[in-house]
């Protein structure tokens, strides 16, 4: 919504500056998007007269001119390239230091082919007034009297243009008068009374019938349609003042009849339409469209209507879309001799839907979809009639009104105390009542039980909270005292849930293990989703922004692997990335789960990546990520040795070098391992990648323990270690050997550590391997005799053999 300052002053009696007005507009909810003040851009350009013009001594196409820039001042020497520059010419001069908007330069003092120019003579293009750049502005000779004056003052360009971004709840402010009303209420001046129109001589009956043809269910599409014809008009150009205001608002003046409707739309928020009455065939019908009907709109394009759209038709078919755009066939041209003015009311929801379907964005739609004041139907018609008679002459018919304005009187019961209760600011009853009155509300009854009638132009106000908003936004939000929120006694309490705390901890633990946290898209390419066990149609977006972002991710890995490739393409191959976030097994809330996933690519190992004098890093493998998982779970208060390690990680992991960590058969705590080569290929990832996924929601809640730690059970007795190596079949898991050894004496054996695994040599041929373990035996109460130790050792050997078939290596 754009308008000029002088236009605003048509409705608002004010001494305030543009800046004060703009600040207030923004404060009261009419956000100023910009002020185009020609004085700021073009204020330096002055009327000047060329006294003398001579050829430049060193350049054929240049002249050196002597310019009078102010009465009685010395002449200025200026180098000028314009072919039309001549002695006696009145034009526009820009002194040094001026910013030239058309060429986006600031004038500096420097010689042009050896002659110093003390400024510049300007073309219309340099002032961005038009495209004209053939020569400097050639102003009327009599303007020589104005030498030294600001160009914008002389040509009347000094009217700042204010652009307001309206929120959708304020249809009343789609007209300058509505904005003036808000400003007046906010103390920025006085709202001028509506100008009185000259008494109208309605000379004849409007001969064109106007029919509303709706069913009772669809009657709200266009409940009222008022029309009047004016005959014998001469449709020339509209007055200059109207044209310049329309231009300032961003509209192109067309002819007087059309300009009047556009002007009233901007001035009063009341859209109108004019038809060439002679081109209407038969009657005017307001009705819903019929599927497949077509019409040529005023924008020169053909539109097909359907049965949800409100059309205005004549007997030959649709002419235009009610409340959106009129038709070419009945448009007013300079030849128009009789005009029919339409002032109707169209349903906001239907108008918006029609606008969206057709893609038409028009000033009429902008207003009707917000809700035009239904009481403006007749006054709008009369105002248009008045202007047309003034500009184009002619005789007006009687008004013809089909239907009735949809005016419902809305009365809001209102206790003035509500203002303070909701806003926290104490205002006097007088101020509250004055503010509402200034905005057009009428109040009856006592302040603690008032009845407030809402004006017809405020469809957005329904209840007491709306009235409080009206009062406080006009009173000024800065008057609301910042009031401390009462706090609970004492120190702030912890607020995070256990899951939230775990997520925080997991993040920092993974970062501590050298991972860099990434945040990747929740939606991924469909083929990736499918590859990772997702891709169900229920999780496909109906309107994705691109195919790369079309399917909700079933797991976090695709985004991380894609990032690995992207980084590799930028020369970074050794990457450790993690993400902690949500993924989706289905579309229901309970299907969303939180996962912490990490990838290690290349040689990005815990101890460091790449080559190093102290030892090169090996490529990442399953044990790197197993360590990550175990470290993370431990950090989250879960002992990973309590979980089972199984070999059923999903298909995107290497079948032999991956595992699942489970609690019972169903609860998966984590997967880890090397990524399947086929998956790497499918995602275009080079280099080895190992990855893990931890399912944070699956972790059992931490048992409520006493905060006090249990007593330290440390024995003063020295522990004893024994090394045992077993030859086992190749497929025996080291974990089983460890478990059997550890369980041989649960009280005395404190730790079992695998210190060597050997699969080579002659063992390989036999399908066997050697697993060497170190056993730490911790006596509790007394030093163990050699015999006692021997007994334990023997039991270990027996138990390991029973469990794994392993023989003690001799």
């Amino acid at each position, binding site marked *: 919504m754009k308008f000029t300052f002088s236009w605003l002053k048509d409705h608002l009696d004010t001494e305030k500056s543009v800046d004060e007005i703009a600040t207030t507009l*923004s*404060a009261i*909810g009419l956000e100023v998007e910009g002020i185009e003040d020609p004085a700021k851009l073009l204020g330096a350009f002055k009327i000047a007269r060329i006294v003398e013009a001579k050829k430049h001594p060193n350049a054929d196409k240049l002249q050196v001119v002597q310019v009078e820039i102010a009465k009685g001042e010395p002449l200025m020497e200026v180098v000028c390239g314009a072919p039309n520059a001549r002695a006696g010419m009145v034009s526009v001069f820009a002194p040094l230091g001026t910013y030239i908007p058309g060429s986006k330069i600031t004038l500096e003092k420097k010689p042009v082919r050896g002659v110093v120019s003390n400024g510049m003579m300007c073309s219309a293009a340099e002032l961005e007034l038009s495209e004209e750049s053939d020569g400097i502005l050639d102003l009327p000779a009599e303007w020589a009297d104005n030498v030294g004056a600001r160009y914008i003052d002389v040509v009347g360009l000094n009217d700042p243009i204010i652009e307001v971004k309206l*929120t*959708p709840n304020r249809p009343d402010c789609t007209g300058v008068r509505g904005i003036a009303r808000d400003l007046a209420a906010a103390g920025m001046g006085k709202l001028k009374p509506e100008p009185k129109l000259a008494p109208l001589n309605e000379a004849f009956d409007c001969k064109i019938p106007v029919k509303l043809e709706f069913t009772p269910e669809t009657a709200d599409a266009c409940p009222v349609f008022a029309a009047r014809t004016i005959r014998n008009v001469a449709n020339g150009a509209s007055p200059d003042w109207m044209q310049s205001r329309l231009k300032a608002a961003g509209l192109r003046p067309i002819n007087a009849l059309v300009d009047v409707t556009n002007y009233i739309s901007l001035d009063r928020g009341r859209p109108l339409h004019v038809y060439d009455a002679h081109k209407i065939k038969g009657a005017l019908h307001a009705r819903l469209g019929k599927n497949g009907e077509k019409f040529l709109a005023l924008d020169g394009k053909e539109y097909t209507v359907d049965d949800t759209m409100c059309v205005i038709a004549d007997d030959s078919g649709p002419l235009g879309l009610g409340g959106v755009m009129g038709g070419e066939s009945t448009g007013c041209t300079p030849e128009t001799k009789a005009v029919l003015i339409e002032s109707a009311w169209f349903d906001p929801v239907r108008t*918006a*839907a029609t606008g969206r379907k057709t893609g038409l964005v028009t000033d009429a739609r902008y207003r009707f979809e917000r809700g035009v004041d239904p009481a403006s139907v007749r006054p709008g018609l009369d105002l248009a009639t008045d202007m047309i008679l003034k500009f184009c002459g002619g005789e007006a018919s009687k008004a013809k009104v089909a239907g009735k304005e949809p005016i419902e009187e809305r009365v809001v019961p209102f206790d003035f105390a509500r203002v303070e209760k*909701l*806003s*926290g*600011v104490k205002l006097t009853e007088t101020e509250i009542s004055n503010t509402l009155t200034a905005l057009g509300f009428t109040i009856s009854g006592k302040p603690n039980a008032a009845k407030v009638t809402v004006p017809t132009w405020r469809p957005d106000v329904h209840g*007491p*909270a709306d009235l409080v*908003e009206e009062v*406080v*936004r006009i009173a000024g*939000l800065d008057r*609301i005292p*910042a*009031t*401390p*929120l009462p*706090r*609970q006694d004492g120190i*702030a*309490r912890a*607020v995070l849930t256990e899951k*939230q705390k775990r997520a*925080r901890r997991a*993040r*920092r633990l*993974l*970062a*501590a293990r*050298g991972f*860099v*946290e*990434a*945040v*990747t*898209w*929740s*939606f991924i390419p469909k083929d990736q989703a499918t590859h990772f066990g997702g891709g169900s149609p*229920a999780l496909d*977006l*109906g*309107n*994705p922004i691109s195919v790369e*972002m079309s399917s909700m991710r079933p797991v976090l890995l695709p985004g991380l692997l894609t990032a690995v490739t*992207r*980084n590799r393409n*930028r020369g*970074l191959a050794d*990457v450790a990335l993690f993400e902690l976030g949500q993924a989706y097994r289905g*579309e229901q809330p309970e299907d*969303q789960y939180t996962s912490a996933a990490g990838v290690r690519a290349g040689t990005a190992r815990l*101890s*460091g990546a790449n080559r*190093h004098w*102290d030892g090169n890093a090996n490529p990442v493998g399953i044990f790197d990520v197993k360590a990550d998982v175990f470290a993370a779970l431990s950090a989250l208060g879960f002992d990973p040795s309590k979980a089972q390690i199984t070999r059923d990680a999903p298909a995107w992991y290497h079948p032999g070098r991956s595992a699942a960590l489970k609690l019972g058969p169903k609860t998966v705590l984590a997967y880890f391992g090397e990524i399947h080569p086929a998956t790497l290929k499918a995602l275009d990832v080079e280099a080895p990648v190992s990855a893990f996924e931890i399912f944070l929601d699956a972790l059992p809640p931490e048992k409520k323990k006493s905060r006090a730690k249990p007593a330290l059970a440390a024995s003063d007795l020295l522990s004893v270690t024994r090394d045992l190596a077993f030859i086992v079949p190749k497929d025996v898991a080291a974990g089983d050997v460890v478990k059997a050894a550890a369980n041989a004496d649960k009280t005395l054996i404190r730790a079992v550590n695998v210190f060597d695994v050997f699969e080579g040599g002659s063992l390989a041929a036999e399908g066997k391997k050697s697993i060497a373990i170190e056993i730490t035996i911790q006596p509790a109460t007394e030093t163990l005799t050699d015999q006692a130790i021997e007994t334990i050792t023997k039991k270990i050997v027996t138990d390991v053999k029973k469990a794994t078939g392993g023989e003690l290596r001799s």
Partner: protein
Amino acid sequence: MSTSDVLSELETSLLAEIAGAGDLASLDAVRVSALGKKGRVSELMSKLGSLPPEERKSFGQTVNTLKAKVSDALDARKAVLEMAALDERLKTERADVTLPVRLGPVAEGRIHPVSQVLDEVVEIFADMGFSVAEGPDIETDEMNFDKLNIPAEHPARQDHDTFYFSPKADGSRLLLRTHTSPVQIRTMVAQKPPIRIIAPGRVYRMDSDQTHTPMFHQVEGLVIDESTHMGHLKWVLQEFCKAFFEVDEVKMRFRASHFPFTEPSMEVDIGAEAIGKPGQWLEILGCGMVHPNVLRNCGLDPEKYQGFAFGVGLDRLTMLKYGIPDLRSFFSGDLKWLSHYGFSMLDVPTLGGGLST
């Protein structure tokens, strides 16, 4: 030669030999020749038996004294020789102290700026008694729009703003939440006031350009009780901005605005002094008193309960506070960007220790 002369001579000679031993091996040879089983001092002791009883005692004492002297001299010499040997060895043990070392994983790892800033925000609101509420990304029209007083014809509900899933058999469609407000709804439905929550999370809108991404992060706040008003809202936002930007004063400008779910509604600008760019205003958040219709939709009586809600872009806060230029990089997984703008795991924001220091 008297016995004492012999002893004296022996002492002199032994001490000279000890002093003259150039290395540990020759010192040991002296030790053996003096104190070994057949050593010269030991041999003197074996003479003890052949002496008259009256001389035995004094001879024994004298020899013992000699033995002690020699033994001490050997120890002292040994210490000197060992020190010299050590010095000699250490001279050969020389590291190139300029060789580079690995800084280890803690130096490499990073927390994403958005996670870090969320931790900061949580810290601030926890102090004001807000807990953290979460909800699903995939929502219904009812939760994302209807209950929030956003009517069916509202432009935000049209395809061009909202990501929808394909319609189900009954015509209903799920969507990706366009704000975290559904979490407010879920909270109000599940819990009676007083309510103080913040709701952080991912939100989705069909926008993609220099300053918009189809996915971004929001934090919304909600306070509902019987007396919380706009003054409290102002205070909470002021205190938040001061704490978050870690400055003593933040210039704030409250402008009337319109949102379907709040009434009255405000937009809030902060003076860019807070981020070291004086003279500009930055629009940072929208807020207001929860609309009576929203309260009603959640089963709360607007005559009894009232309160405020606000929403702020977490990514935008991050960009403002830490001078990050491009929103799109947030989600690119670009290691260079993450390493540069990310945070060490040791940078745990606390109110006591400062959020960012």
